[in-house]
C-alpha cells in the first residue's frame, strides 16, 4: 500500500514540477478557468442567498392571504367576508390589511404605504422606512407631504425611522394610520386591500383555502407555501437563464482547454518520449496528465469559489445585482448573510470541473500513447 501511495506521490510531484516549468501556458489557463468558476459560483451563491432572504422575509407572512378579483383584477375586499371566513373551522384569526403604492413624482420612486401593524403611528403621523428617509433626507420630527386621491396634499409628521435591520422589507415602507390611509386614498368604506388569515393547524391550510374559494368564488386565496414556491422559482429561473448564457463561456473555455491540451509543444513530446523510454508506462503518463488536469481544476475551482464568496457576501455581487435583484429607484441596501451549502459546491463542481475534465481526457491519452522514438526524434 505504501509503495502505491509513494508512486502516486512521486507522479504528483513530477506533475507539479512540470506545470511550473510551463508557467505561462498554465497560468493563462488557470486564470481563464478561475474567472469562469468565479462567475458561475457568484451566480449560484447569489441566488441561494436571495432565496434564503426571501424565505426569511416570508416567514412572517400570514398562512393565507385572501384577495378579491373583479374582472381578473385585484379589487378591495369587503371586510364582511372576514367575519364569514373566521367562522370556518380551523381559522384562528382574520385580519383585514390596508396597503397600497404611492408614486412620488419628485424622487420618481414608488413607496409602499401600509396601514396595519400592532403599533400604529399617531394621527397624521407616519413611520418611515430607512430607504425612504435616505432618499428624501428626512429625519424624525420632519414633515412629509403626500398628494391625496382628491388632489389635495396632506402633511404628515415623521414620528420614527424604522430600524435598518429590516431594510429588505422596510426600505420603501411608509407606515400610516388606517383612517389616514382611507382619507389619503379615498378608500371605499367597509373594504380592505386583502385579508390575512391565520390557520391553527398548518396541515389544514389548503382545506381552509378550498373552503374559502368555494364560499367566495370572487376571491383568490394565496397560500404562504405558494408565495415561497413562486419566489424560489423566479430566482431559480433567473439564475438558470444567466447560467445558460454563461455556459457559452464555459464551452469556449473547454475549446481553449482542448486546444491547449492537444497542442503539445515539441519539448513536451520529447519529455514524454524520454519518460516512456526510461520505463514509464502509458498508464503512468495518463496518471501524470490527469494529475496535471486535477491540479489546475482544483486550484481554479477553489480560487473561483473563494473569490465568488468575497464578491457576493462582502461586496454584494456588483456584477449580477442589476440582472438578478431587479431594479428600482428605491432599492434596499442590504448585505446577504454568508452561507455556503455543500450541495451547491457539488453543483458547481458539475458545472465547471466536469466539462474541463472531459475535454482533457482525449488529449491526455494522445500524449500518453505517443511512441517514445517518434517523440524523441521530433
Amino acid at each position, binding site marked *: 500500500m505504501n509503495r502505491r501511495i509513494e508512486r502516486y506521490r512521486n507522479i504528483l510531484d513530477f506533475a507539479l514540477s512540470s506545470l511550473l516549468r510551463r508557467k505561462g501556458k498554465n497560468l493563462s489557463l488557470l486564470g481563464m478557468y478561475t474567472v469562469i468558476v468565479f462567475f458561475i459560483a457568484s*451566480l*449560484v451563491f447569489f*441566488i441561494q442567498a436571495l432565496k434564503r432572504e426571501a424565505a426569511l422575509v416570508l416567514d412572517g407572512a400570514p398562512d393565507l392571504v385572501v*384577495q378579491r378579483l373583479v374582472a*381578473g383584477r385585484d379589487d378591495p375586499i369587503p371586510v364582511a367576508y372576514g367575519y364569514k371566513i373566521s367562522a370556518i373551522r380551523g381559522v384562528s384569526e382574520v385580519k383585514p390589511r390596508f396597503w397600497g403604492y404611492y408614486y412620488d413624482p419628485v424622487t420618481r420612486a414608488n413607496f409602499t404605504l401600509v396601514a396595519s401593524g400592532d403599533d400604529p403611528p399617531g394621527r397624521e403621523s407616519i413611520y418611515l422606512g430607512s430607504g425612504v428617509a435616505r432618499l428624501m433626507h428626512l429625519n424624525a420630527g420632519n414633515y412629509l407631504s403626500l398628494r391625496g386621491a382628491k388632489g389635495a396634499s396632506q402633511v404628515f409628521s415623521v414620528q420614527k425611522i424604522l430600524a435598518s435591520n429590516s431594510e429588505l422589507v422596510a426600505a420603501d415602507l411608509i407606515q400610516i394610520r388606517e383612517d389616514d390611509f382611507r382619507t389619503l386614498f379615498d378608500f371605499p368604506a367597509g373594504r380592505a386591500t386583502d385579508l390575512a388569515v391565520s390557520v391553527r393547524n398548518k396541515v389544514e391550510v*389548503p382545506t381552509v*383555502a*378550498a373552503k374559502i*374559494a368555494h364560499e367566495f368564488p370572487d376571491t*383568490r*386565496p*394565496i*397560500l404562504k*407555501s*405558494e*408565495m*415561497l*414556491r*413562486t419566489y*424560489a*422559482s*423566479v430566482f*431559480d*429561473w433567473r*439564475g*438558470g*437563464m444567466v*447560467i*445558460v448564457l454563461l*455556459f457559452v463561456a464555459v464551452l469556449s473555455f473547454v475549446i481553449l482547454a482542448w486546444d491547449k491540451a492537444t497542442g503539445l509543444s515539441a519539448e513536451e513530446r520529447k519529455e514524454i518520449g524520454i519518460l516512456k523510454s526510461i520505463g514509464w508506462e*502509458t*498508464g503512468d503518463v*495518463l496518471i501524470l496528465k*490527469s494529475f496535471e488536469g486535477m491540479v489546475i481544476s482544483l486550484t481554479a475551482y477553489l480560487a473561483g469559489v473563494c473569490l465568488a464568496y468575497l464578491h457576493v457576501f462582502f461586496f454584494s455581487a456588483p456584477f449580477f445585482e442589476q440582472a438578478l435583484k431587479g431594479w428600482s429607484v428605491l432599492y434596499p441596501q442590504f448585505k446577504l448573510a454568508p452561507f455556503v451549502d455543500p*450541495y*451547491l459546491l*457539488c*453543483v*458547481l*463542481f*458539475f*458545472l465547471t470541473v*466536469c*466539462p474541463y*475534465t*472531459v475535454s482533457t*481526457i*482525449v488529449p*491526455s*491519452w494522445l500524449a*500518453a*500513447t505517443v511512441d517514445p522514438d517518434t517523440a524523441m526524434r521530433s
Partner: protein
Amino acid sequence: MILHPAILALLIGALLTCFMMLYAGWYGVRILRNWDLQSGSELQLELERRTYLISTLVSYSLTFELISLFLLIYTADRLHILITGAMCAAGTLNANAFGYPLLLLKIVNFLLAGVWLIVNHADNRGHDYPLIRVKYAGLIAIAPLSLYELYYLYAYFSELHADVITSCCGSLFSLERPGISGDLASLPSAPMMIVFYVVMAATLLSGVYCYRTGRGGYLFSALSCAAFVVGIASIVSFISLYIYELPSHHCPFDILQKEYGYIGYPIYALLFGAAVAGMGVGVLTPFRTRGSMVQVIPVFTRRLITITLILYLLFTLIVSYKIVISSFRLGGY
C-alpha cells in the same frame, strides 16, 4: 422545465457521461470486430492504444454517475417545495412517470459501470488481454443505457413544473390537481427484519466459504445481489423507522438529510460498494481458467470477497447500532 442550476448541472453531467459512453461503445464495436492479438497490423496497435482511452473514459463516467446519483436525489429533495403535496425527494420523483424509472436506471447504470471496471481491472492484470471481447461486448450493452438515462433525465425535468401562483388564481389552481403522494409501499417490518439478518448472515457464510475454498462464486455473487435488494427494501421497511423514530415514515431519502446526521451517505455508499464488488465476483468466476487469468482471478476474487464482506458487515453494524441505540421500539408492528 425548472431552470434550477442543479438541473442544468445534472443535464450537463449526463450529456458528458452519455457522450463518453457512446464514444467508448463505438470503439467497443471496432475492437470486437477487428481485435486480433496475433496480428501486428497498424489497426491492431491503434486498438490496443485505444483500450487505455476507453478505460479512462469509463472510469470518469462511473465517477460522474456516482456523484450525479446523489446529486439527483438531493436536487429532487430541494425541489419538493415547488411541487404541491411533495414532502421530500419521494414526492418530487413521483411528480411524473419518469422520476422513479430514472432513479432505477441511474442505479443500474452505476452498478453495471462498476462491474465493468472490475472486469477491466482484471483484464489489465493479464498480459494477453484474455477478457477483451467480454469486456467490450459488455460495454456495447451498457452504452445505450446511458443514452436512455439522458433521455429519462431530460424527460423527467422537462415534465416537472413548479406550481406557482398564476395571475388568475392562487391555491385553487393547486387544489385542482390531485396531491402527489410521497408514500412508498413498504414491506412489513418484522418479517423483513428476519429476512435482512438471514440474507446478510448467508452472504457472510458463503463469502467465507468461497474465500477459503475458491468455490461457490456464483452463489456468493447471487447472495450479495440479494443482500443489496434486501438492504434497500429493509431501509424502506424498517431501518428508516428507527432512524426517524416514527412508525409511519418510510422515506429512503430523508436519511441523507442533515437532520439525521447524513447517515444515509455511509449507508448507501457501503451498500452500493458491496453490491458492485459482490457482482464482480460472479462475473469474473466463469473466466478463472482463461489464459493468464488463472493467476489473476483467484487472487482478485478473494480481494473482492473481502471487500464485499467488510462493506456488508459495516453496513449491518451501522444499521444494527442505529436500531439498538434508537429509543424507538417497533412493538405492535
